[in-house]
């Protein structure tokens, strides 16, 4: 079997493959580096990492797990959007349909919900891990700031998603949350009005939260995630606590 596979012509030497991946094949460090460097997705990461940086104890993989949750949320969220209408008469019934009528709807909705809870937990854990290891210190201070923005985006995604089931819990949670917002001196009441698109949590608020939750905030998250990962490479890889020469 293995012999058979070895005898097959290497697909990576075909013209089509080479037109997509220009870096070429080979086991030299140069070729391997080029394979990473010349790929738009992989180039965010470094070509080489210290083996210490891959050990569980250094990061507990909390950042990667947060990203994993985010990806699960994107996939399940897009699928939920196919059955959910962000309108007052339909939102709650669509949510119930997802639970009891749509095939695998309950599974997808619960996966979305649990991943959302897990992501908030993991993002906080990631932040504490970075803090207690001192990984926020120079030269990584800017990436800490990007991380704080990502924490805010995560929390706001969580908050906007909370309204969408349109049940009593959602309604009163957003009523209370938006009233907290209006306590901001000077601009609070106006900011609440703009966020809700009215004076009460109503049809406009549901639609605004839906657009924020499904379009604006995910785009912001992807943008800042790209910068966050790229900065790991630019700041000399993950902080391992080892002395660098």
């Amino acid at each position: 079997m293995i012999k058979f596979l070895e005898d097959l012509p290497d697909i990576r030497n075909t013209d089509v493959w080479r037109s997509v991946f220009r870096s070429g094949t080979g086991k030299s460090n140069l070729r391997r580096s080029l394979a990473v460097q010349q790929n738009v997705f992989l180039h965010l990461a470094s070509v080489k990492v210290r083996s210490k940086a891959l050990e569980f104890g250094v990061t507990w993989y909390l950042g990667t797990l947060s990203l994993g949750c985010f990806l699960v949320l994107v996939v399940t969220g897009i699928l939920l959007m196919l059955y959910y209408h962000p309108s007052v008469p339909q939102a709650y019934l669509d949510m119930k349909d997802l639970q009891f009528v749509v095939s695998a709807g309950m599974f997808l909705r619960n996966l979305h919900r649990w991943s959302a809870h897990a992501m908030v937990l993991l993002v906080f854990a990631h932040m504490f891990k970075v803090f207690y290891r001192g990984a926020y210190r120079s030269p990584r201070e800017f990436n800490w700031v990007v991380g704080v923005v990502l924490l805010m985006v995560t929390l706001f995604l969580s908050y906007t998603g909370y309204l969408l089931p349109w049940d009593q819990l959602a309604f009163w949670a957003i009523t209370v949350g938006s009233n907290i917002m209006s306590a901001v001196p000077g601009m609070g009441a106006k900011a609440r009005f703009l966020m809700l698109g009215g004076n009460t949590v109503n049809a406009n608020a549901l639609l605004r939260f839906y657009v924020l939750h499904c379009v604006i905030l995910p785009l912001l998250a992807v943008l800042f995630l790209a910068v966050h990962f790229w900065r790991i490479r630019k700041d000399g890889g993950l902080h391992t606590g080892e002395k660098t020469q």
Partner: protein
Amino acid sequence: MTEEKKNVEEGCEECSRRKFTMAGLGAIGVAAAGSAAFGYQFLSPNALYEPSPIVDAGKPDRYPLDSVTPDVAAGIYIVHKQEGIYALSAVCTHLGCLTAWKPELGIIACPCHGSKFHSDGVKIEGPAPKPLPWLKTWVDDDGNLQIDRSEQLAQKQFVRI
């Protein structure tokens, strides 16, 4: 002389490039300010399809003496005391939850964070910073009790029938 002129011209070239950039930045700044103003206008709805703040509470004789009648949909209490009838907002002054009348205790209590009020709106305890406001109440030409939820009374005012 010609040397000097050349320098001036060179300076001008340098200067014009800078001027162009500054003019460009200025234009972008104006466009950004305009977009911000436009965005603010766009995000503020001009017509709100929200329920009217004025509630028709029906004939006053529906409310017996010494009673507190909640209207959950409207978020108000109609209270009938010896001095007369008044309407109280049922929206907690803390964070906007709907309070509930507890007839067995004779108080108004908020389920969210535990604020408690007397039936005249005065705070008993809890995080609420202010008493429940009294709302403008009157009897219209048909003899129906009307409450304007958007107008809070500065002082107690009873409707006498």
